[in-house]
Each structure stands twice: as C-alpha cells, then as structure tokens.
C-alpha cells in the first residue's frame, strides 16, 4: 500500500454538521462484537477495558460534553436520529472525543438467549448510508437513572501512586537506577525454604493492552462462575484475575494504565495468618492456596488481602450455572456456597507439568508450564516460571530495574511482580502545549 500523503483526503469529506452539535458513533462492543456473542454469559459479564462496564451498554460521553449537557453517569437519555430512537444510560468516559457519543452495537436483542433485553439496541439509530456515524437529532434527558454494573470502584489511584510505577524513556535511558524499587524490609518470622521450585509471575505493564483475554481464559480454565448483573451491582464479581484500569492526567487529556491483578501469592501472606481453620495455606513451592473443603467462610482472609483478589461464593453461583457439563474443566474443583476462592497460578497445569517431568525423569524446562492467562495474552505481557531457575524468563524479568511489586510498604513480598511503565511520548509539536 502506498503511503497516505493527504490524510484528510483519504478520510473523505467531513460529515455533515450535527444539529445538536452531537455526533453518534456506532462501534462494535469489545466483548460481544455486533451481537453475535450476545448470549455468552462470560462475555456479557466481562468488564470492558475502558469503561469497566458489565452486562449493559451505555452512551459514552466526554466529561466536558456531559457537564455541558448537565448529564452524569447513569442518567438515562433518549437518543434519536432520522432512523429511530432509543433510551440509553450515559457513561462519562475521560478521553472520549468532545461532542461525540459512542454507542456500542449488539445489545438490546429481542430474540435469542441470555442477551435478550440486555442494554439498548443501537442498530435502531443506524442508517444504511452512513453506518458508522450519524448526527443526533434528539438527545434529551428522561430524568430516570439506570444503575450500571461496573467492575471497578475508583478510577484513579487516589494517592497510591506506586500502584502504577512509571517514567519516561529519557529517564529510563539516562538514569535507569531511578526505577529500582527499594526493598529492604525484614521480617521477624523465619523464611520458607524452597528446595525444588519457587513459582513466580512477572507482568509487563508496557505490553498489557487491557484486552481482557486473560480474564476470560482464567474464567474458562478455573471454572469461575458468572454471577449476573444484580450480583455485579452488589460487587460480587467472581473473576480470579481482573484488569484494573486507572486514569492519569486531566480528564481532557487522560491516559489509561492497565494493570492485571491475579493473586500475588505473597511470601508473607496476610490471608494465611488470619484464617482460623487453616483453609488458606502456603505450599512447598511458594504458592498460597485455598483448601475449599476446609473453608468455613469467615472472610477474614479477604479483609486482610490488600490486593482484594479473593472472591467469595455469597450464593451457590457455580451450582446455578446453566451450562453444558462438558464446559467445566474437570481438573479444577467447582466451589460451593460459602467458600472463598482465588487464583492458584493454574495449579492443575503446574502439577501436570511437574508430574510429566518426574515420570520422564528429566528436569522441568522453563516455559513448560503456561498459565491460562499467560497462554491467552496476545502481547506476552504475562510470564510465569520457576524463580529457582536463574535462566528462566520470569527470573530474568524480575532482575530488571523496572521490576516492582505492589504495596511494597506492607512487606507482603508478592510473587507476582510488575515491570514499570516506560512512556515514549511524542514530542509536543508546534502550537501544542508541552
């Protein structure tokens, strides 16, 4: 393809002006696409990368546009074009272009299974001539509110700057040692010994694009149940792995950071110390594991988990799933009501590989164990392996100056660590502010 010399000519003539100053953009949904996956509970309940919304679609508005129109997230608006009208809840998304309303397709279905009645149908607003955008001829607030089931609480790090460590490429080239996270904390308690394996995970924030593939992979691998919109509204999402999305910068010029959050498998795990019945324990290769049969459901472990990666079966979610028996992974226990659960680093895969290597009487090779999240990551942001093997990919990543752990000040010594974000921003062009 020849290089495009004139971008505006390549994009065609600019669209006709919108009467209300609002232009509707029709886009496929990140999870259910044009609706072809609308009956899939996993995808319906998947928090979307930017909005973190589950189950329903919303009309995405920029903060400035929303404040100009006097609208806030969850306000219901009636949107109309020459082709039809729909009612949709507003979601204010920083980074959205001003005066543009993004509407996602594939929702509001009238036939099918689970997807029936979920969200609103943006196809009704769409015309054949200009299928991807239309001027809004009606955009009025109905006065109603519609609660949106969000998979995230606060959108910013609220002072916890070290949750996302970052710097610029210049800083990285000139003073890489500035990235090193200081870790000099000691513990009164004796250290564990790991004569064979010591599992660990490293997640490169520079590679993570927030696509959520790992979340679904984890859900499929580990028999993680879906809970439904009502339960998401009650903050009972069950995903063992989530991808936190944080806004940085001003609402007009926002940056997003994505941070996958599996269990950290802390070396000094706060959850282990508080379980009164030994239901969460440290294993001989550093994993922090749940013994489901032993759990009585005090939930103290979740209170004590600073990363909030533990999930509780407030109801018998798994028992209520309507799905084909063969869709469950036979290698993973299905958890019952009243039991805590969490990421195991795909223990079943670890055991499988270790047993294979023992049967064949050969050492376990690096990369032989691949966790579900790692396997599904399109950018290879997630690496898992044995920290006792200094040549393993995960050990090499952890040796990087960029390596850091979350909430280091708590001295939990997580086995999941992160590589700090390094930004290589464009230099401001003439006329732009710095």
């Amino acid at each position, binding site marked *: 393809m020849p290089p495009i010399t004139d971008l505006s000519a390549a994009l065609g003539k600019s669209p006709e002006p919108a009467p209300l100053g609002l232009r509707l953009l029709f886009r496929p949904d990140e999870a259910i696409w044009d609706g072809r996956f609308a009956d899939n509970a996993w995808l319906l309940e998947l928090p979307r990368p930017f909005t973190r919304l589950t189950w329903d679609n919303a009309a995405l508005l920029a903060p400035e546009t929303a404040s100009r129109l006097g609208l806030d997230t969850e306000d219901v608006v009636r949107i109309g074009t020459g082709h039809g009208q729909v009612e949709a809840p507003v979601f204010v998304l920083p980074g959205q272009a001003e005066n543009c309303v993004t509407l996602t397709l594939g929702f509001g279905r009238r036939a099918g299974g689970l997807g029936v009645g979920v969200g609103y149908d943006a196809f009704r607003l769409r015309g054949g001539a200009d299928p991807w955008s239309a001027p809004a001829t009606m955009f009025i607030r109905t006065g109603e509110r519609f609660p949106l089931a969000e998979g*995230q*609480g*606060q959108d*910013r*790090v*609220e*002072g*916890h700057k070290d*949750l996302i460590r970052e710097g610029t490429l210049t800083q990285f080239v000139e003073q890489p040692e500035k990235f090193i996270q200081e870790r000099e904390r000691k513990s009164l308690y004796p250290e564990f010994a790991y004569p064979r394996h010591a599992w660990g995970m490293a997640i490169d924030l520079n590679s993570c694009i927030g696509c959520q593939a790992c979340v679904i992979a984890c859900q499929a691998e580990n028999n993680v149940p879906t809970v439904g919109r009502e*339960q998401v509204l*009650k*903050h*009972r*999402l069950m995903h063992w792995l*989530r991808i*936190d*999305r*944080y806004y940085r910068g001003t609402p007009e010029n926002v940056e997003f950071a994505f*941070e996958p*959050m599996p269990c950290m498998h802390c070396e000094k795990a*706060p959850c282990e*110390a*508080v*379980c*009164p*019945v*030994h239901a969460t324990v440290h294993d001989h290769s550093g994993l922090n594991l749940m013994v489901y049969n*032993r*759990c*009585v*459901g*005090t*939930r*103290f472990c*979740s*209170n*004590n988990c*600073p*990363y*909030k990666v*533990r*999930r*509780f*079966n*407030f*109801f*018998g979610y798994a028992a209520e799933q309507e799905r084909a028996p063969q869709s469950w992974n036979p290698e993973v226990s299905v958890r019952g*009501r*009243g*039991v*805590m659960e969490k990421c195991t680093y795909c223990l079943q895969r670890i055991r499988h590989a270790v047993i294979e290597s023992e049967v064949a009487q050969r050492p376990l090779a690096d990369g032989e164990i691949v966790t579900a999240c790692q396997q599904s990551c399109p950018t290879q942001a997630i690496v898992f392996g044995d920290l006792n093997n200094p040549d393993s990919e995960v050990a090499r990543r952890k040796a990087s100056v960029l390596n850091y752990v*979350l*909430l280091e*000040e*708590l001295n939990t010594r997580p086995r999941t660590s992160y590589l700090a974000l390094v930004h290589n921003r464009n230099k401001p062009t003439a006329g732009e502010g710095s």
Partner: protein
Amino acid sequence: MTVAIDPPGDPPIIQPGVSLHSLSTEISFRVLSPKAPLWWWVGFSFGFVLFLWLLVAVSWLFANGIGVWGVNIPVAWGYAIAEYVWWIALASGGTVISALFYLTRSPWRAATNRIAETMLLAAAACAGVMPILHLGRQGLFYWLFTYPNVMGLWPQMRSPLWWDFTCLLCYVLMSLMFYYVGALPDLATVRDLARTRFSQVFYGLLALGWRGTARHWRNHKAVYGTMAAIMAPMVISVHSVVGLDYAGGLTPGWHSTQFPPFFFFGAVTSGTAIVIILTILVRWGYSLQDVITEYHLNALAKVMLVGSVMLSYAYFWEAWGLVYSSDLATRLEFYHRMFGFTAATFWVEKVLSSIIPQLLWFPAVRRSPVILLLISGGIIVGMWLERYTFTISGLMHNHVPSWWFEFHPTFWDWSTLFGTVGLFITLFFLLLRFMPIVSMSEVREMIDKADSK
C-alpha cells in the same frame, strides 16, 4: 453510709423503711406472683415478636446463603460483625459493673448488679450467635474448636478469630457461672417463700440445697470473690481480643495497637448505658424506688461519664495519630471515613457517644431518669454507628482504589439487627420474671450494715 462519693445532701442509698423482711418478700413476690404485670406482657410480646422475626431471618439466611445480606468484596464483614462487637460490648459493660465494682466494694453495686448480669447474659447470647450466622458455612463453626478430630487438624492459632472464639466461649461460660453463683442465696430465699409445689421444687433444685449456714456463706464469699477477681481482668482481655480482630488485620484504619483499649472504653460506656436504661425501667416497672435510688443512678452515670471521656480520648488519638503517621492508606481511609461514604454515621456517632454525654458533668442531669434515658439511648445508638462505620469504612477504603465499593445493607441485614434486639428483650424479660432481679442477699447486707451503725 461510710463511703461518700458525693457532697453531703446525697440521696440515700436505701430509703428508710426498707427492712430485711420487706425487701425479701417484695423481690420474691415479683418472681412467685402467678400474674405478671401488664407492662411485662407488653414488653415481652414486643420482644418475642421480634425474636420470631429473627428466626425467619435466620431461616432465610440458612436457606439462601450469606448473599442475602449486603456484604460484598471488599466489604466482606458487615452488620453481623458490627452487631457482634456491639452486643459483646454491652455484655462487657455489665461485667465491669458486676465484677469490677464488686472488688472495689462500691455500695451502689448491690442493688444494680443483678440487672447488669441479667443484661449481660441476654447480650452475650445475642453476641454469641452473630459470628456463627456470619460464616459462609454456618454448620461448620465447630471447626474453630480445639477438639480431637479425625481430620487431625487444629485451628490456626495465629488467627485473632480463633482467640476471639476461645475468649468468647470462656467469657460466656464464666458469666453464666458468675450469675448463678451470685444468685444462689436469692434462689434459696425464693424457695423458702414459695407457696406452690412447683415453684418450691423448681427453685429448690436451682438453690442447690442452700441453707445459709456460716460454712455456706464462707464458701460462697470465697468463690464469688475469686470469680469476680477473675472476671474483672477477663472482661478487659475479652474485649481487647475483639479489638484485636480488627487490629490484627492489615486493613487500613484497623491496623493499630490502640484498638484493644479503644474497644474496652467503648464497652464500658455502652454497657453502662444499657444498665442505666434497664435499671430505670425496672425501677419504674417494679416500683423499686426504695431500693434503687437516685444514688444509684448518679453512680452509674458517673461510670458512664468516665467511659465516655476515655472513649473521647481514644477518638482523639485515632485522629491525632494520623497526623504524624506515614501510612498513606490509613490516612486516606480516615479522611474518607470523616468526609466520604460514612461521613454521616461518623459524625452522628461522635456527637452521641462523646459530646452529648458531657452533660453528665452536671449532678442534676445524673439524677434525672428521663435525661439519663435519653443520653444512654443515644450512646447505645452511637456505639452501634461507631462499629458500623469502623467496620465498613476500613474495608471500603482499602489499599487498592480499583476495589473501593460501597456497602448497602439489605432488608435481611436490618431483620437480623432488630431480630437480635428481640432475642435480647425476650431473654431479659424471661429472666426478669423468673429470677430475682435485685440481689436480695447483698442488699440485706447493706441494710444490716446501715442498721448496726
């Protein structure tokens, strides 16, 4: 009286005219009378209906799971734990009055300690059910016991929950024994005054053959004094361990060494408040103005004032400690507790349990039953709000803002709260009806001392 705790002109500790005989017959009559007064039926019915509603709420909970409540992740502890702390604090306050002030030989204790102990038992029953209801798998609560079992497993002894479970168990058993041992001479009095065959046998069995010999009295004094000497420090440790349930956690706002005493101060304040309320009501209902005088109200109000001042001191430290703390999460949590989701309950709680009780500095307030009722009621509500705010806010404003979610109680949360109030009223009214509500033996001792002076 020999002990002067107020300037001259104090109301008498026992009204003149109360004799050894009149006291015994008066108090025993309440127990042996075949008919209960109308107010008893009204109060008992009210409590019993609420208690039945608790049974409905608990059945619903067992049938459907803990999800019927508003708890979530991150706020995995909600009303059940707040209520547990609230009830056990009320019970602990009762122990302070009956055990600690027995050791100090405070003259006002004699007429009020049985009310405090009766309240204690009812409140401890309410407290005891909450941690079990709160479990995800309630039927397996006994796994917290240290008992020999085929699984070859013991509880995990680093967990504050296990300490708490053990302490609570000891405390409840000890309280029952303390109540019973203290009531033995009175049960014998009731037995002796009983006229029907049934009550003679019933109270006769309960009295364990008490004949009031010098040897009986000597043993009784020794046992009771020893138990009081154990109970007084025990109640401090029990409630401190409740504080450790929080302090032992890594949650922002909970993780501080000040909470064991903080919780104990709260227990003294709220426990005294409920004793004051019940004392005033029982005094009215049973017309015991001669035995329970303004002297008692004054003394109890002073204890409550001391508790409130200590509590205010703890509040002050909770805030002041953060001024020089370097822990960002804790500071953020406290900021949001004061001005965020829990702001209303935070400030109302401070006004009710710390500011309004300062009125008790005025002697006239301390002797006015109506004002005392209002202040005490405010403290009890305030202390509930405190436990709620403390539990919710710490969990909500945790270390990762992405998982800061609000807590909203459900209908079943409220049902459990008011249901346990029903359980409390039911138990208290039953004990009020069938057990002597004033320690006759101890008041007789006081009358005797006063007469022989």
